[in-house]
């Protein structure tokens, strides 16, 4: 009986035969990273044309057409993120996933949100101390009487203040409260940490000044978070000065230099700005915003809600109709132990949300038997004005802000580890330099705050270097590959915990172990086996592809280096880094 295939069978067989070569090709492993330059700059820093709306005339230099301003509701943002969003998201299939703005080196390209500074080029302690103020004007306490013209009240915010104008530059002056020197120091110090790390922060500096340097403009008002506006008259000004910190006859306030560009209101921690063509990555999927959770945890910037951010329209100097949106972190004065009138909240800052249903439920069903960090929170003798800020009970991964932040909530281990690699670059000298900018009267408090920051930094490094590899900064010299182990260079773990191994394999070959040499300052070097690939083989040919795995065995996962062996004279070129869990 002969084989008599049906037409359908014949068609299927023909298709299989036709696809066979492609199937074979799919079976062969392909290079994960192409031979090309790693993207280190986002296009959102480029200016773009912005069409004026509503028949508005063409842009002027002093009044540019710009994306629409956004006004954030103080109460709604809290209610939405505390109650409505969690309920709405409960049944939503919305897995977080990894961040979108990550380049082949597991880093974020420089953008209008974040530009790597201390981790990319290194910074001196002086550069950290100057921070965002470098090169710009600052208030001089020796200025002439009446030269600081108060032209606006300080709207919203926990601490009172006013705006002054001096020699064409505006400064928002922020007063201290009952926590002597803390709020002003916090805004100056925290701004330097954020800026040195890479985020954009204002030039906030401490100024001690005479009352006579101020000149009040009549008829000013101050808008409060809630309630009616208040007059900013001489009595109100005297009240602000009476309550702020003092040194002798001088009044102490934080002077925040007005941000450049046209203010557009806060940025949001979700979605994108519809009228900004540069804004294409949903904010909740940005690594630089997700990783900011670790930075906020370090400083206990619990008030890290959208109201404490700002977008500005940076008009092009060449074309007034063009520009781009810049994103800022502002109002960092809650850092380092801000206290509220309700002691229970002050104790909980950083440990739980203001209204934390998970913590409430857990405490309820466990009869309060487990001890909570806020039960044992204590002020430090000699630094009582820094409230409950300490390294005691600081668990970086459990840190929480005032209320849920839709971006922080989506942070993955890779996002947190990214921020940790940046924080690891701050040495004690850098930290001390930033704290110095707070101009605290007490030397003890200056040293204490530096010590607490270093201890909290150690806890962050200890936690986030445990799972993903802290190896970074690949450098190649011919066939010698060196990386830096941030865990060893920062003495995060005991020296005996480090034991280096590595293997190298071509894309479809077996792995070969190679010796690894641990050098000073965390350097880890290995020699890649030289290949005998003919020079005629194209540079991007898969036969040149090498995959190197380096373990430090203090962390669970390896650093996986992807490279092309280009032969002499170009040597090896690294094209990608991965940090898997195993």
């Amino acid at each position: 009986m002969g084989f008599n295939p049906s037409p359908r069978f014949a068609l299927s067989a023909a298709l299989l035969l036709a696809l066979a070569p492609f199937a074979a090709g799919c079976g062969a492993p392909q290079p994960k990273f192409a031979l090309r330059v790693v993207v280190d700059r986002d296009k959102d820093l480029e200016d773009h044309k912005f069409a004026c709306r509503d028949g508005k005339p063409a842009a002027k230099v002093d009044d540019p057409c710009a994306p629409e301003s956004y006004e954030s509701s103080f109460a709604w943002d809290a209610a939405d993120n505390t109650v409505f969003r969690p309920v709405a998201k409960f049944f939503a299939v919305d897995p977080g996933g990894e961040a979108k703005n990550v380049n082949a080196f597991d880093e974020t390209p420089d953008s209008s949100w974040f530009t790597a500074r201390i981790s990319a080029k290194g910074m001196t302690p002086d550069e950290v101390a100057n921070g965002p103020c470098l090169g710009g004007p600052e208030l001089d306490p020796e200025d002439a009487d009446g030269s600081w013209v108060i032209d606006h009240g300080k709207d919203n915010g926990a601490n009172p203040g006013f705006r002054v104008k001096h020699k064409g530059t505006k400064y928002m002056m922020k007063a201290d409260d009952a926590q002597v020197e803390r709020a002003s120091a916090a805004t100056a110090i925290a701004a330097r940490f954020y800026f040195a790390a890479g985020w954009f922060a204002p030039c906030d500096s401490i100024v001690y000044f005479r009352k006579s340097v101020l000149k009040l403009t009549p008829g000013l008002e101050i808008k409060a978070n809630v309630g009616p506006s208040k007059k900013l008259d001489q009595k109100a000004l005297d009240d602000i000065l009476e309550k702020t910190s003092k040194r002798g006859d001088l009044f102490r306030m934080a002077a925040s230099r007005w941000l450049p560009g046209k203010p557009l209101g806060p940025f949001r921690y979700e979605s994108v700005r519809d009228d900004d063509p540069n804004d294409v990555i949903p904010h909740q999927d940005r690594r630089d915003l997700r990783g900011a959770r670790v930075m906020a945890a370090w400083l206990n910037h619990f008030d890290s809600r959208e109201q404490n951010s700002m977008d500005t329209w940076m008009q092009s100097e060449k074309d007034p109709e063009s520009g781009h949106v810049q994103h800022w972190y502002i109002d960092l004065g809650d850092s380092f132990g801000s206290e509220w009138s309700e002691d229970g909240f002050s104790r909980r800052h950083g440990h739980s949300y203001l209204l934390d249903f998970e913590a409430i439920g857990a405490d309820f069903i466990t009869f309060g038997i487990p001890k909570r960090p806020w039960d044992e929170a204590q002020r430090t003798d000699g630094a009582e004005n820094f409230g409950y800020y300490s390294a005691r009970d600081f668990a970086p991964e459990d840190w929480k802000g005032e209320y849920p932040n839709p971006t922080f909530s989506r942070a993955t281990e890779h996002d947190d580890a990214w921020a940790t690699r940046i924080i690891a670059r701050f040495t004690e000298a850098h930290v001390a330099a930033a704290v110095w900018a707070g101009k605290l009267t007490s030397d003890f408090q200056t040293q204490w705050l530096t010590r607490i920051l270093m201890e909290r930094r150690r806890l962050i490094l200890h936690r986030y270097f445990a799972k993903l590899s802290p190896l970074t900064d690949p450098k190649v010299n011919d066939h010698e590959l060196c990386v830096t182990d941030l865990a060893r260079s920062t003495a995060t773990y005991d020296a005996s915990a480090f034991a280096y191994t590595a293997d190298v394999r071509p894309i479809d070959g077996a792995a070969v172990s190679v010796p690894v040499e641990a050098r000073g300052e965390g350097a880890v070097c290995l020699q890649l086996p030289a290949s005998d690939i003919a020079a005629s083989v194209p540079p991007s040919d898969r036969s040149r592809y090498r995959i190197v795995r380096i373990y430090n065995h203090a962390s669970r996962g390896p650093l996986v280096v992807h490279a092309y062996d280009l032969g002499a004279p170009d040597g090896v070129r690294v094209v990608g880094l991965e940090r898997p869990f195993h």
Partner: protein
Amino acid sequence: MMHRPAPRLSPPPGFGAGFMGGLVGAALDLTGQQRIVSLSVNAELTDRLQGDIPFVEQVTLGGDVLMRGFLRGRLVDRSALVATLEYAWPIWVYLDGVRSNQKRGSGIEVLVAAGTDPIDEGTHISSFRFSIGTHHGL
């Protein structure tokens, strides 16, 4: 839960009674962090001096006084002995935490209670209650 005194009817002519009561209790903060266990014994007695005691003048439990969780007016007699074992712990700033101004906040209460027959009738457990509620203040 608001405290609202029950309306009292005028006593009948020729009625006379004495009212006595006492409370003994102790409280202990187990951890020094507001995990407070307390035990109290409360006795109340209405003693007839002349005539019959109307029920509105007798000892009443339930409602927002002793034996919360029982409906007010269901437990009425000439005398009552109430033992209360209480454990209070903070679950939030305003929920049974002692606030910075030393005033008590609100509380979520889970009450488990059993009522017995009078002593002269054998003190058998005749009713059992489980209730959940809230209060504000002391």
